C-alpha cells in the first residue's frame, strides 16, 4: 500500500471503512430526496421550461426575436457559448490533468466535475445550433457526406477556418469526456447493481453497469485506459479553449487579434470552471451529506487553483492594456480605451472587479478555508467571467467604423434562453445527483488506507501490520511503560518490532511519529523508552520494574 506523508491532512474523515464509503455514496440513490432537493429542483425545472419555451419561440419565428441588429450580428449567443464551454473546462482538467499529477484530492470531486463538464458542453452546443436559424436544415452542413451531394455541387467545409476547428475540438472534447466519465462510472454502477433490491432498479443498473465483473484483468485494463485517456485528454483540455480563442484571434480586428488569446482563454476557462465546481460541490456536500469526503481541504485546493488562474487572467488583462499603449497602434489603443470608458464601461468594471480583485482574498488562508467566502467568490467569479466574454465580444463589435456604433439590447428571449440554459443545467445536475454515484467509489477506496483519517491517526491498524507481531522474535513492546497496543502498532509501522531495535532508536523519531498522529498522541513522551527497552532486552526485569514504579506514565520526573 502506498504510504503518504503523515503531515498531509487526511482526505477522508469520519472513520470510514470500505463498506461505509459504499453506504454513504449510494444513499442518495436508494433514499428519498429531502425538502431542499425538491425546492431547488422545482425552481430549476420551471426556469428550464421557460428556457425551452424561448428556444422554441426562436426556432419557430427566427433569430429576429433576438436583440441582434444590422451592426451587431454576434452578441449574446456567442457570449453564452464561450461562457458555457469555459465552465465545461474544469471537469476534464480535474479528471485528466490532476490524475497525471497523482493528486489524490481529485477523487472526491472528479465524478461531479465531469458530469458538470458534460452538461455545460451540452448547454454550449445549443447556441450554435440555435444560431443556425433554420435548424431543420442543419444536415446541409454535412451535405458532402450525405445523399444530397450532387444537388448543390461538391461543397466542402473550409478546413482552414477556426470555426470549423472549433466544431471538431468541441465535439472531440465532448465525446472523449463522455467516454472517460462513463468508463469510470461502470464499476460504480456495478456496486449499485449488486446492492439494489427492487427488480426495476436492479434491471436499470444492470444495463447501466454493462456487466462489469471486477476481476484482475478488468482492473488492469481499467487502470491502463484511465491513464491513457488522461494523457490524451490533457492536451485536449488545452487545445479546446485555445481553438475557441482563435475564433477571435485569427480575425484582424483590434482587440481580438492578439497572440496571448490562447493561454489567456485557457486560464480563464479553468478559472470559471473551478468556480462552477466550487459552487456545485459546496451545495452537494451539504445536500447529499458528503462532508466527510468533500472536506475543507478540497475546497482550499480548489481556491488555490482559482486564485492562480484568476491572477493569470489579471496579468493577461493588464498586458493587453500595456501592449495597446506600447504598440502605438491607435486603433488598438482606441479599442481598449473604448472598453474601459465607452458605453460598456459598466461591463468592464464588473469584469475587472469580479475576476481580478475579488479572488485575491484567497491569498489569506482563513478566507481560503472559509466555506461561505468560497461560495460567494465562486458566484462572483462566474458573473465576472460572463462579463469578460461580453466585454471581449461587445466592445469590439463597436470598432473603428462609425457605422458599427450601435448598442446591443437583449430582448426577453435572449435573457430567457440564457437563464433557461442555467435552469436546464441545474435540472440535469440535480437528476444526476439522485441517480448516479456522485463520488468515484472505486477510486476513493484505493486512497482510504493512505488518506483516511482513521488510518492516518492509527485508530485502525492495517490488518497486515497488525498480524506482524506473530512473526518470529518480535517482542511485546507494551511491556514498556507508556506504550499501549495502539502505540505498539505505530512502532511496528515504523519497522520496530523488538526491544533491541527500540533501544537503539533516537526517541525524537518516535516523538515525530506520535505528533503526526493527532492530538491524542501528543502527550506521550518517548524519552525513556529506549532505556526501558535496553533493560528489557537485557532481561533486567526487576530493575525495569523498579524504574517504572518511579516513572509517571513513562515520563521521567
Amino acid at each position, binding site marked *: 500500500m*502506498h504510504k503518504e506523508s503523515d503531515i498531509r491532512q487526511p482526505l477522508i474523515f469520519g472513520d470510514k471503512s470500505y463498506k461505509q464509503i459504499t453506504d454513504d455514496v449510494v444513499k442518495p440513490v436508494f433514499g428519498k430526496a429531502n425538502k431542499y432537493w425538491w425546492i431547488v429542483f422545482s425552481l430549476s425545472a420551471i426556469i428550464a421550461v421557460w428556457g425551452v419555451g424561448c428556444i422554441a419561440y426562436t426556432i419557430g419565428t427566427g433569430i429576429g426575436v433576438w436583440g441582434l441588429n444590422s451592426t451587431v450580428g454576434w452578441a449574446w449567443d456567442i457570449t453564452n457559448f464561450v461562457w458555457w464551454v469555459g465552465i465545461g473546462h474544469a471537469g476534464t482538467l480535474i479528471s485528466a490533468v490532476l490524475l497525471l499529477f497523482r493528486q489524490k484530492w481529485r477523487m472526491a470531486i472528479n465524478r461531479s466535475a465531469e458530469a458538470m463538464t458534460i452538461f455545460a458542453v451540452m448547454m454550449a452546443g445549443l447556441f450554435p445550433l440555435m444560431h443556425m436559424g433554420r435548424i431543420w436544415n442543419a444536415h446541409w452542413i454535412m451535405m458532402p457526406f450525405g445523399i444530397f451531394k450532387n444537388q448543390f455541387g461538391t461543397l466542402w467545409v473550409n*478546413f482552414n477556418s477556426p470555426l470549423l476547428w472549433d466544431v471538431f475540438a468541441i465535439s472531440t472534447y465532448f465525446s472523449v469526456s463522455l467516454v472517460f466519465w462513463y468508463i469510470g462510472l461502470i464499476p460504480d454502477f456495478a456496486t449499485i447493481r*449488486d446492492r439494489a433490491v427492487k427488480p426495476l432498479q436492479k434491471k436499470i443498473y444492470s444495463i447501466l453497469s454493462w456487466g462489469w*465483473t471486477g*476481476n*484482475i484483468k478488468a482492473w*488492469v485494463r481499467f487502470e491502463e*485506459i484511465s491513464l491513457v485517456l488522461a494523457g490524451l485528454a490533457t492536451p*485536449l483540455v488545452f487545445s479546446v479553449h485555445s481553438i475557441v480563442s482563435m475564433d477571435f484571434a485569427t480575425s484582424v480586428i483590434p482587440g481580438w487579434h492578439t497572440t496571448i488569446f490562447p493561454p489567456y482563454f485557457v486560464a480563464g476557462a479553468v478559472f470559471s470552471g473551478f468556480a462552477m465546481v466550487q459552487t456545485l460541490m459546496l451545495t452537494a456536500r451539504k445536500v447529499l451529506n458528503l462532508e466527510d469526503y468533500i472536506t475543507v481541504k478540497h475546497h482550499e485546493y480548489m481556491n488555490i487553483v482559482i486564485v492562480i488562474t484568476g491572477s493569470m487572467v489579471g496579468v493577461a488583462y493588464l498586458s493587453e492594456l500595456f501592449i495597446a499603449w506600447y504598440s502605438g497602434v491607435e486603433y488598438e489603443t482606441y479599442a481598449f480605451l473604448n472598453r474601459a470608458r465607452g458605453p460598456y464601461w459598466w461591463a468592464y468594471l464588473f469584469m475587472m472587479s469580479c475576476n481580478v480583485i475579488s479572488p485575491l482574498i484567497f491569498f489569506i488562508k482563513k478566507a481560503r478555508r472559509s466555506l461561505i467566502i468560497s461560495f460567494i467568490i465562486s458566484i462572483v467569479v462566474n458573473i465576472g467571467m460572463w462579463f469578460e466574454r461580453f466585454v471581449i465580444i461587445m466592445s469590439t463589435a463597436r470598432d473603428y467604423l462609425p457605422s458599427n456604433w450601435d448598442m446591443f439590447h437583449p430582448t426577453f428571449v435572449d435573457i430567457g434562453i440564457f437563464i433557461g440554459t442555467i435552469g436546464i443545467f441545474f435540472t440535469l445536475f440535480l437528476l444526476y445527483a439522485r441517480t448516479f454515484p456522485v463520488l468515484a467509489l472505486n477510486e476513493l477506496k484505493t486512497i482510504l488506507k493512505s488518506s483516511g483519517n482513521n488510518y492516518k491517526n492509527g485508530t485502525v491498524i492495517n*490488518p497486515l501490520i497488525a498480524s506482524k507481531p506473530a512473526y518470529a522474535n518480535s517482542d511485546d513492546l507494551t511491556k514498556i511503560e507508556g506504550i499501549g497496543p495502539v502505540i505498539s502498532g505505530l512502532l511496528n509501522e515504523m519497522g520496530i518490532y523488538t526491544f533491541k531495535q527500540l533501544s537503539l532508536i533516537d526517541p525524537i523519531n518516535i516523538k515525530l511519529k506520535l505528533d503526526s498522529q493527532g492530538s491524542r498522541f501528543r502527550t506521550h513522551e518517548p524519552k525513556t523508552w529506549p532505556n526501558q527497552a535496553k533493560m528489557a532486552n537485557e532481561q533486567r526485569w526487576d530493575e525495569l520494574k523498579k524504574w517504572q514504579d518511579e516513572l509517571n506514565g513513562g515520563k521521567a520526573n
Partner: protein
Amino acid sequence: MKKIYGLYNDDEVVSLAAKQAVDSGLKVSDVYSPFPIHGIEKIVGIAWTRLAICAFIFGLSGLIIGISFMWWVMGIDWPMIIGGKPNFSLIEGLPAYIPIAFEFTVLCAAHGMAITYFIRNWTFPGAVARNPDPRTTDDCFAMEIDPIYNQNFTKNQIIDLFKTTGAFEIFEKNLGEEPTHLNLNNFSSSNVQPANVIIPAITEPTVKDALVKIEGIGPKIQELLYGAGIFTFKQLSESKSSDILVILTAAGPRYRVHDPASWPQQAALAFENKWDELNKWQDEHKGGKL
C-alpha cells in the same frame, strides 16, 4: 467441476493469500475486487494489458486519415484558394490542418481504445456480470481457484489454504448458480504448507551491506529491503525473488516496474566476494533484467 472461492475483507490480506497460494503451487484463476489492487496481477501471473499499444495504433491511423482527408478535400476534390492559403500543397497548407489533425488523432485514439476496452472486458449494455458474489463490488475480495487446474491438490487442501490465509467465507459455485457453502470446521489437516511469511523476521540491523551494488537496486529500494529485514547480501541471496516482489509492490505503484528476478543470484556473487564476475554479469544485463 465447481470453482472454489474464498472471500476476504482486505485488499492486502487477499494479495498475501494469493501469494501464499501461488507459493504452495496452486494456480489462482482470478481475484474479484471492488477496486484495483496494485501488483496482484504479478503475483497471480497475469500479464499487463497491451491496450496502450492499441490506442497508439488507433491514434496514428486517425492522424493519417485526418491529414489525408483534409488534403484531398482542400487540394484535390474541389481545389479552392481561400484567403490566399496554399491549399494546393500538402506541406505548405499543413499548419492550418494541424488543429483538426490533432483533434482527430485524439478522437480516434480515445474511442478506438474505449471500444477495444469494452470488447476485451466483454462489457456492453445487457452483458451478464460474472462476479461470484455481489459483495465483491462493495467491500469483499474473492479469490477464485479452479480445481481443474489444480489436479495435484484435493479439495480439502484448497479449502485449508483459504482458511489459513484468512478467508472468512468459503464456497463453491458455477456461474449463475447458487453457491454451496463449505463448512469451515469440517476439513482434515492437510499437507499444504503455505509459504511462511512475506517479511522475514527483523534481525540485527547494525551489520548492513551496501545493497545498491546489485544492479537494479537504488538507495530507495535498499531502504525498502532494510525495512523488510534484508540487510546483507547473504540474506538477499537466500530470499525468493517473489518475496522481494511483494515487498516492492507493497511500497507502491512506482516500484511495480522493478523486476527482482536476478537479485538473489547477484547477491550470491556479492556475498562470495566474486566482484569481477558480478561486474561482468552486470555489464551484460542492462538494468539487472534477466
